[in-house]
């Protein structure tokens, strides 16, 4: 899922300066699952904004709503009859939701309440970590299912850099060297021969280096 975390309160308060009628909009997808922007977090942020304004003696009207997702037209359309009522929408979805809202509602101020961090997993309650960089050209069949693009800080494709020690990364000793993990895993699977294959220079055009990406599935289009 997409992992995000709420921006510092002061930053959010700063971007809302002068705005009197706000829709705080949660997302029922990833942002809810990672406890950053679901119904509960919307309620908390709305209360924080009201406390700040009450302290300053500045009126504010906070409206709270959480859509099933902010990355689908059908859900964003639910807002079309009420958008004119708000001075701004504070999205608690990921950056995708913020962008899509801005695309669909050109006359409304759309603001981000979250920093969208990465695509990752819940390791345990309250701990998330990155697993996929979305490079657009998956090589996991060759690396035992462990991704050096997402999990090696140097994004090396042909083994460790030589700086890793005792299985730990030299850039960040808090994380395992993913190439050590790949080696151990392939050894356990009796697939070490996979490491004989040399990766050519990676074509990054399928990643963000080629600009915003798009997938069109003619078989699904109506």
């Amino acid at each position, binding site marked *: 899922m997409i992992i995000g975390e709420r921006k510092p*309160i002061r930053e959010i308060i700063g971007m809302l300066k002068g705005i009197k009628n706000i829709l705080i909009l949660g997302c029922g997808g990833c942002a809810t699952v990672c406890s950053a922007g679901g119904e509960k977090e919307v309620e908390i942020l709305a209360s*924080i904004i009201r406390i700040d304004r009450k*302290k300053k003696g500045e009126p504010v009207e906070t409206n709270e709503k959480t859509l099933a997702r902010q990355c689908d037209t059908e859900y964003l359309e639910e807002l079309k009859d009420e958008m004119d009522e708000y001075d701004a929408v504070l999205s608690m979805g990921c950056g995708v939701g913020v962008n899509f809202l801005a695309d669909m509602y050109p006359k409304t101020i759309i603001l981000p309440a979250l920093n969208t961090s990465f695509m990752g997993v819940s390791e345990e309650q309250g701990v998330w970590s990155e697993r996929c960089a979305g490079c657009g050209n998956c090589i996991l069949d060759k690396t035992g299912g462990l991704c050096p693009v997402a999990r090696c800080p140097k994004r090396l494709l042909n083994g460790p850099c030589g700086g890793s020690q005792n299985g730990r990364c030299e850039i960040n000793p808090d994380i395992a060297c993913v190439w050590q993990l790949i080696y151990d895993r392939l050894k356990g699977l009796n697939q070490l021969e996979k490491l004989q294959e040399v990766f050519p220079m990676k074509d990054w055009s399928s990643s963000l280096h080629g600009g915003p990406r798009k997938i069109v599935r003619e078989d699904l289009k109506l």
Partner: protein
Amino acid sequence: MNFCSQGNYDNMTNSNEPDIVAFCCHYTAYACSQDLQNLPRLGFPENVRLEILPCSGRISIIRLLKAFEQGADGIYIAGCKDDTCHNVRGSRVAKKRVDYVKDVFGQLNIEPERIEMFMISREPNRGFIEAAKEMTERIKKLGPSPLKGK
């Protein structure tokens, strides 16, 4: 004894004493008083309004914020000692939520001392009453909530 109804923390009294809302673990509160109606006789301050929870870990961040938003000058949670919580980690969870609100208050330039977590032994003792008195004295020094009169 003054009690809050869940989710409604509007103070109906016009007392000059600080308005304090206390969220209390059922076990901690009864261990101290045996009967909550005994509390005033034992010296529990009248300005502290109680909401009894099945466990302090039941408290949510939004309930703490709403108590403050609705006019409380101070808020505290009284739960069991960290290692004696009936539900194992309830008071630890409650403390994390108090710390969250302290951080929010800090970012809003509101004194974080207006909210506190007290971990009190579940054996008969006066800790429950002392916590209420300590909070009352603390809030008297800080003065009314910065939200009041605005």
